[in-house]
């Protein structure tokens, strides 16, 4: 169990009670009104709601680069085809693992630079802390890469472990540079430290070249140095690429080992304690190795060095035995091992789940465990493990990581791809979260919509369009509102907006947003009211362009085909008036009859006068009807005459 303690400024926890609400990556904390029995509330209460974030890392500008770059690698990994035989995939997985590590390193280097250059000591400490966390993360990842992903067999295993130690114990190189830079390197206080360190890391060539410098200064000891040089040069190194078999190598190695032993026995190096120490190291003498604690630095360096000089062909399965033993010997038995030690030990024990579990507890964000677990899962190393909650370990960790990202105002876009690759619950998470993305601009709304549309999240698409349509409507942007509801195929809302357009027309006598209404196209069919709006505008256009016959036909069909709502018929009939009053006959006999029928249908329903309506309006209505009836009758007469004439 880990516990985090965070003081909330402005709240006196002695006197006040705190309430809180969980968020996805943070907690909202507020002061409650609760009064403890017998106590009077003291002091002014704090009105603020405070946000307590657990995961500060995603707000670090440098770590953001880590998240962005690793997202890219993650997506690449998911796209590796499943149908390849797993043997062929191993090199790919190893290279992906190396890519992940290289971005950790890049990030670490940048943090280090900033930590050095910053003047603020607390900030510098914070950066330093992040660097050490990343260092540990990279160390663990590298070991996992060697043991699990690359899964090197006996022989090669040690070579990989040596590389691992060399990479993470790079102080030697720095020291060596210092020594070589000085005027007389051999008299430098760290000369022998460097030589011994090289030997401890199995860097024979470098150790030899350092020793050669010493040898030239001591012509008397020439033979002794020659002998050491010989031993170092002859040490067999396993070469996985060669035809040499493992037993053959072991035999050669044993011969070399005996040669070293012989040198020690015949006191070849008795006159130089340094060379004698090196010889004892070559023999893997435990006490001598432990004397080099300072130079080894860590117990895992000790493990690898010891294996190098005692069991160079160690099998993966035996690793844990040596690791445990070396750790016990190396570490002070009184102090308990640090989390990093137990994580590495668990890795040596090939206990993947323990590694992941311990990392999850020890580290303050999910980035590392989520990505490592995902990679291991792709290597088919986690199949047997199912959780009793959620679907599996990989998915559980990815979901945690992605949910954390989603709380970030900018990184939420990265999270989408992670959710995509969570078979079990990814989509559900994404659906719930997408609806909650704040939409400040249409540009952002379009991006969110694209994400939803790509994944056929119809419910969310509708809801986003509706939000945008409502916002446009509130700002009196009818055109935009209509566009959004057309995009969402939201018929009800399109009807509502069409009504608004018609109302505006009735009150102002002209249409607004003609550029939109004239270009509805097939979108017009979304709702009846929208169709009517489009057609009604078409009538006005035809009328304006003096295509009276087509206009008349369209107007009539709007009523007879019941496209127009009955409430609007009076307006349509009024629009017919000027057509009826034209010099030439536009409505035929049949059409006039139909118009009359429409008028009757409209008026028959309203015989009783509405008491709520003012008398004046009632009068106006009646006059209008009278006028219409008159016009219709006159038109009918003219049409009969005209049609009769044509036929005759």
């Amino acid at each position, binding site marked *: 169990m880990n516990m985090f303690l965070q003081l909330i400024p402005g709240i006196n926890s002695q006197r006040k009670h705190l309430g809180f609400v969980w968020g996805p990556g943070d907690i909202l904390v507020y002061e409650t009104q609760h009064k403890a029995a017998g106590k009077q509330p003291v002091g002014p209460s704090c009105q603020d709601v405070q946000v307590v974030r657990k995961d500060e890392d995603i707000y670090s500008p440098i770590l953001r680069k880590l998240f962005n770059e690793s997202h890219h690698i993650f997506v690449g990994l998911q796209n590796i085809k499943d149908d390849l035989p797993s043997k062929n995939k191993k090199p790919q997985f190893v290279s992906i693992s190396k890519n992940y590590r290289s971005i950790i390193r890049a990030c670490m280097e940048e943090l280090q630079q900033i930590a050095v250059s910053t003047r603020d000591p607390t900030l510098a400490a914070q950066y330093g802390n992040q660097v050490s966390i990343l260092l540990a993360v990279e160390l663990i990842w590298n070991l996992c890469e060697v043991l699990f992903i690359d899964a090197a067999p006996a022989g090669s295993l040690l070579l990989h472990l040596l590389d691992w130690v060399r990479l993470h114990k790079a102080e030697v190189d720095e020291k060596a540079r210092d020594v070589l830079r000085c005027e007389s390197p051999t008299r430098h206080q760290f000369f022998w430290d460097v030589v011994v360190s090289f030997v401890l890391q199995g860097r024979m060539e470098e150790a030899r070249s350092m020793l050669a410098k010493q040898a030239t200064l001591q012509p008397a000891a020439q033979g002794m140095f020659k002998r050491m040089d010989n031993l170092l040069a002859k040490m067999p190194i396993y070469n996985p690429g060669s035809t040499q078999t493992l037993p053959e190598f072991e035999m050669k190695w044993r011969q070399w080992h005996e040669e070293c032993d012989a040198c020690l026995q015949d006191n070849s190096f008795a006159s130089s304690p340094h060379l004698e120490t090196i010889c004892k190291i070559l023999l893997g003498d435990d006490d001598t190795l432990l004397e080099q604690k300072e130079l080894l630095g860590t117990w895992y360096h000790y493990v690898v060095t010891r294996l190098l000089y005692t069991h160079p062909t160690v099998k993966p399965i035996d690793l844990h035995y040596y690791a445990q033993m070396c750790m016990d010997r190396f570490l002070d038995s009184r102090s308990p091992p640090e989390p990093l030690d137990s994580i590495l030990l668990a890795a040596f024990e090939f206990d993947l789940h323990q590694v992941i579990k311990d990392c999850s507890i020890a580290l303050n964000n999910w980035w590392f465990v989520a990505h490592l677990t995902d990679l291991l899962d792709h290597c088919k190393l986690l199949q047997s493990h199912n959780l009793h909650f959620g679907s599996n370990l990989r998915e559980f960790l990815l979901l945690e990581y992605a949910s954390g990202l989603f709380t970030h105002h900018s990184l939420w*876009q990265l999270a989408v791809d992670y959710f995509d690759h969570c078979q079990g619950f990814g989509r559900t998470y994404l659906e719930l979260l997408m609806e909650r993305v704040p939409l*400040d601009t249409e540009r952002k709304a379009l991006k969110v919509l*694209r994400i939803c549309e790509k994944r056929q999240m119809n419910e969310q698409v509708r809801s986003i369009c509706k939000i945008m349509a409502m916002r446009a409507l509130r*700002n009196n942007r009818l*055109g935009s509102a209509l566009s959004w509801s057309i995009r969402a195929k939201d018929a009800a809302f399109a009807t509502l907006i069409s009504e608004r357009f018609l109302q505006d027309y009735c009150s102002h006598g002209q249409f607004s947003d003609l550029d939109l209404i004239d270009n509805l196209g*097939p979108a017009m069919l979304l709702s009846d009211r929208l169709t009517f709006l489009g057609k009604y505008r078409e009538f006005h256009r035809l009328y304006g362009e003096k295509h009276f016959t087509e206009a008349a036909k369209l107007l009539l069909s709007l009523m007879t085909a019941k496209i127009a709502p009955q409430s609007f018929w009076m307006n349509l009939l009024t629009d017919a008036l000027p057509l009826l009053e034209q010099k030439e006959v536009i409505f035929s006999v049949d059409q006039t009859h139909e118009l009359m029928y429409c008028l009757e249908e409209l008026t028959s329903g309203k015989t009783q006068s509405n008491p709520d309506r003012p008398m004046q309006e009632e009068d106006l209505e009646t006059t209008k009807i009278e006028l219409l009836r008159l016009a219709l009758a006159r038109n009918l007469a003219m049409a009969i005459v005209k049609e009769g004439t044509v036929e005759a």
Partner: protein
Amino acid sequence: MDSINAKYVSQKISKTRWRPVSSASLQQPEFFATGSWDNEENKVSLWTIGDHGVINMDDDFEGDPQLLCDIKHSGDVLDLQFLDSDRLVTASSSGAVTIYRHHPNSQTLSVAHQWDRAHHYPCDNAPCTGVVCNSPEVVSVGEDGRIILFRADQTGVLRIIENADSSTIHAVTFLRTAEVLTVNSIGQLKLWDLRQQSNEPAQILSLTGDRVPLHCLDRHPNQQHIVATGGQDGMLCIWDVRQGNMPFSLMEAHSAEMWEVHFHPSNPDHLFTCSEDGSLLHWETSSSSDTPSFLQGGRNTSMVSRSAIAPAGGNQSIISAWLSGDSGKGQLETTHMLPSQTLSVNSLDVLSQCLVCGTDGEAVYVSRQVPV
């Protein structure tokens, strides 16, 4: 394919623009500006790809963009244009249009002038979606459907066309002096003559029956009647504004919104587009005649489809000939310029042999050897 370097900048980049270089000299551009979006605190930043002004610490990263200076920007940067070599204009999601001045001596940016809430609703801010400069004139457009004309040297507003569009205007560009083109969210291209007092467009061009929103446009640098637009469906349209109101040709370019399209300013046979689908395309017409093959299709609208949507590996060229009329003469070649990536490429700019683009993956990519 030449190398294109990524620089992670810890902010989603909405716009990238090269600082103009004088056309007389054969200078390569050295400075570019970026604008961010969706951050808690957005910024306008100025970068250099040369080693002037800053000490280059790593020799290995020669040419890696180095930050010169930045300044807070209230709201998302929705558009960014250089007014001249020292001043740049931004469009903000808060509705403001701001002119920033770069002081080369102190390497700082400062606000030279701001038209706060230039775009707005009766009781809310309306995002300003685009600006275009023709020094000293600046034209801005917004979600509120307004077109506003400013002069950089005057604090007032020169002209407002209220309700120029019933839907959102996504982008604006100058066609000629006093003539601007806008694209909107219902797929229309409108031509405005700012000398006319009427609030109606001089011309409306659109794909009939098609209401696919248009997001970007650019004018051919030499032949001003040729205009390229990009839409929500990733389609690239070439228009001839002199003739008719239909696009000249249509090309399937991207699988999602095309955010920007740019003709190469000095070699307009080359065209560049970027998209929400995470790709950046380089289009090249190889025509023997003087007319670019964008215009060899005849009057009929043609549709050319690339053989496949962006290949995962990128870096491959896909050749497709025009299918229409006399297609034999011209050939169109498209090249992916970015390695495969999934997050949107929001903006690009190309000048001379240099190209810069910015992504939602919080990276800026710079290429200094664009084959033009």
